[in-house]
């Protein structure tokens, strides 16, 4: 009788060991033990933090919910006191065409029934080019950085539509800027801001000032003399037109 118990006991130990060892697999989604969990998660709202558990309290409704929020509709950030800067950054005065709801998913936007893309041809670049040669150089250098961060993987470093995406055959149908010389500044801006055709809206990535800088840079790609003082483009004139516009 005693012997039987011993064998049963041995079996029980073996079974327990199996279960314990079996449960020893780590959760791949856990970053591991923390020394002081209460110092790891604070109640202060920050982007990309799960507020399902703050300190010891659990908030079931907050679990796996978005903490990075889009600002309320119609809110405008403070852009300082420089009037040109403020004019550049205030919300774009042209609404997207109603078609953008289906083509670009703009369900939260106020849309227009007019052909706003056509109307945008009347807009001029409100950003004056610097007249000083060094300042102009650094202006275009900045434009180059913006262009290469945001555009060149499709449009190519030279704007010929031969970016890596095209060369590797992942994407098709990017135009060569050389064929688009009659495109107006305003339409370029509109296309970058709201997107056009296969191109998506880039307003969530780059702000208005950056887009106008890129528009200047695209002009520079189309015409290497663009902006230099001895050619026809007069930055003074551009600035004046802008004032009338607003």
């Amino acid at each position: 009788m005693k012997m039987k118990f011993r064998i049963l006991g041995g079996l029980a130990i073996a079974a327990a060991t199996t279960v314990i060892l079996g449960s020893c697999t780590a959760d791949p989604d856990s970053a591991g033990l923390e020394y002081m969990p209460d110092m790891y998660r604070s109640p202060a709202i920050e982007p990309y933090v799960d507020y399902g558990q703050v300190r010891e309290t659990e908030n079931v409704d907050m679990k796996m919910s978005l903490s990075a929020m889009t600002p309320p509709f119609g809110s405008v950030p403070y852009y300082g006191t420089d009037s040109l800067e403020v004019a550049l950054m205030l919300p774009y005065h042209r609404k997207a065409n109603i078609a953008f709801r289906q083509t670009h998913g703009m369900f939260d936007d106020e849309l227009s029934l007019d052909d706003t893309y056509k109307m945008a041809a009347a807009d001029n670049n409100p950003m004056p080019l610097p007249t000083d040669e060094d300042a102009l150089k650094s202006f275009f250098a900045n434009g180059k950085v913006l262009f290469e961060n945001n555009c060149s993987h499709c449009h190519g470093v030279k704007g010929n539509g031969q970016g890596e995406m095209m060369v590797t055959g992942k994407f098709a149908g990017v135009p060569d800027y050389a064929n688009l010389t009659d495109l107006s500044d305003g339409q370029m801006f509109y296309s970058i801001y709201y997107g056009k055709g296969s191109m998506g809206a880039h307003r969530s990535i780059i702000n208005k000032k950056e887009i106008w800088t890129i528009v200047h840079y695209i002009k520079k790609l189309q015409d290497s003399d663009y902006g230099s003082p001895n050619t026809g483009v007069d930055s003074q004139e551009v600035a004046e037109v802008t004032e009338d516009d607003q």
Partner: protein
Amino acid sequence: MKISSSQMFRNFNKWCLGLATALFMTGTFNSHAQGGDLFKAKCATCHQVFKDGTGPKLYQVRTKWEEGGAKEGSIIQWVQNWEVAAANDPYALQVSKVKASAMNAFPTLTEEQVISILDWVDEQEETVATASIARGAAASDVEEESSLGWVWIIIGAMFVVIILSVGGVRRQLKNAEAEASGSEFDASMSYSDEFKLWAWKNRKYVGLGGLIVVVSIVVTLFLGLYSIGVVEGYQPSQPINYPHSVHAGEAGIDCRYCHNSVTESKSAGIPSVNVCMNCHKQIAGTGEQVAEIQKIYDAAGWDPEAGVYTGKTQPIVWNKVHVLPDHVYFNHRQHVNVGGVDCKQCHGDMTQQMETAMVMPVEELNKIEGNVTLSKPTMTMGWCIECHHEKEVAMGPLYKEGGSEYYNEIHRRLMSGDKSLYSQYLEDGKVTVEELGGWECAKCHY
């Protein structure tokens, strides 16, 4: 018009080729190559051959118009100026309502050119995406690996059972032997008594073995404590199997395109779905990619069949990889803009990262050219401190005109005040982050 000799040769070649093709396809020859070029230049921005995009697919579009009852030649007119065609032909008017966005007018295209485009389109052959067999193989691999662990546990359990039962049999045999020989066997002696007796007999070895066991337990315990809070190699599962190697590597997309708040904000930012859709509206993938990319479409509310947004969106729940405790302050903008630190210093070479993102072990980071070599594990305080001690501020915009005002001011004060401090800093030939206050507690903890 001047033509160089090489150009002439090329033209001659082209001409020969053209003649050869003409001989092959007598009668039906027209310049299809021109049609292809024109398609790519004018149409491909919105139209694809076999798939609806911004505009409808163009394969066999003439047959479609004919069957729909369009007037002859109406489609040519449509391409040149769709508004004119819509006014003349009721079918064209109907077509103008198919897509929400209006087509561009191409008045410069001649009738022959439009026909050559449409001919070229109809000649294309659809490449059928072959279902990948590799995926099935990979999945079964993973399954095998996880089931392997269980096999070992079962084998271990079986060994324990065998050892115990053999022990029991041995004891019974011993008892039987003792009974047979007539000598009195101490039945009250239990396993533990027997073990004690055995241990006392071999006390030298047992003591030595015991010491080794105790020391190794203590060492393991301390190593375990050291590993708390070290997240090197942490690679949580993600809702979408996103390969950085395809995007940042093959497609040549800059890190800052998707993680665009890195130069503006504390956080580098996870791209919103509309950024994915900038490319994936067109790229639906092949083979095993299709299911993954469909998750983006579900999130963005894009119906790839109809080619329209439905407005039914849902968030993608990514798992955060680089998690800093709340008592540490880290700002991407400061490091990228002011410090001029390259992404790969901390995140490794993402152009080679074929799996989902992970916290790169420091050994991997050290292998990358141009990185400051560090010894402490990634994402620990020692790692931060070490880099601040090594990193030369001059590599950032400290000396740059129009650079960070913060560092320029520090530089001015260093130059205008007591120069001995400056020369002390420069003893090792560089001004480091530490020397400009990068080791002050309140820089990162507050």
